[in-house]
């Protein structure tokens, strides 16, 4: 390999089209979901620890704003990660790889996430 190949990975110098933003947000939402696992595991553990634990988990989701906000944030991240992941799988079979269709797919992912974020909010609150 030649050492003279240009290297420009200073992301701050790039213009980011929608496709790139969706790609980086796919990663960010993945990291958010990973961090949120500790909340989900604690909630799941509590809910299965007995009738009292189940009631306290239910109570937290019905009364604690922090728990509700985390739940909403995780559902929204999941909605985005899920939609962007589906886009990936569809592109893997060769659909939507052209610039136009890829742009439309990215728009659909953003649109779908916005709808899911609102629905998740309605569900949580």
């Amino acid at each position: 390999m030649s050492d003279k190949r240009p290297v420009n990975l200073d992301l701050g110098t790039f213009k980011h089209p929608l496709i790139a933003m969706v790609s980086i947000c796919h990663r960010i939402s993945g990291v958010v979901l990973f961090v949120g696992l500790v909340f989900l595991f604690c909630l799941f553990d509590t809910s299965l620890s007995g009738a009292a634990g189940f009631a306290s988990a239910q109570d937290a989701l019905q009364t604690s704003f922090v728990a509700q906000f985390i739940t909403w944030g995780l559902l929204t991240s999941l909605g985005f990660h899920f939609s962007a992941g589906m886009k990936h799988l569809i592109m893997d079979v060769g659909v939507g790889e052209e610039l136009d269709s890829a742009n439309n797919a990215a728009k659909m992912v953003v649109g779908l996430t916005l709808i899911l974020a609102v629905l998740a909010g309605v569900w949580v609150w």
Partner: protein
Amino acid sequence: MVTTITNFGRSGLYDWLLQRISAVVLALYSVFMVVYLLLNPQLDYAQWDALFGMTSMRIFSLMALLSLGAHCWIGLWSVSTDYIKPFVFRFVFQMVIGVLMFVYTVWGVQLLWGL
């Protein structure tokens, strides 16, 4: 030639495939959980406990749990190799992820089987 040895499978292609298989399992599991919770707004402990007492649900949950471990590892490994340049930081980051995924896997097994 020294190639990378911290990826999950032995090759990028293997990781690529695993990431997709685990994605499908996790997608099915999350859709199932969301739909189940939406359809059962009056869920009580007995029903919740019975759900995770079913063998089929335990198999599905364990499948999702193992997929989660692989999916998180491959995803966060990619993130770490792209954004964390200094070897020590990258290595420590990957070690933390590895330990956490192991903890989650054991924790999940314990929750499902109540050992």
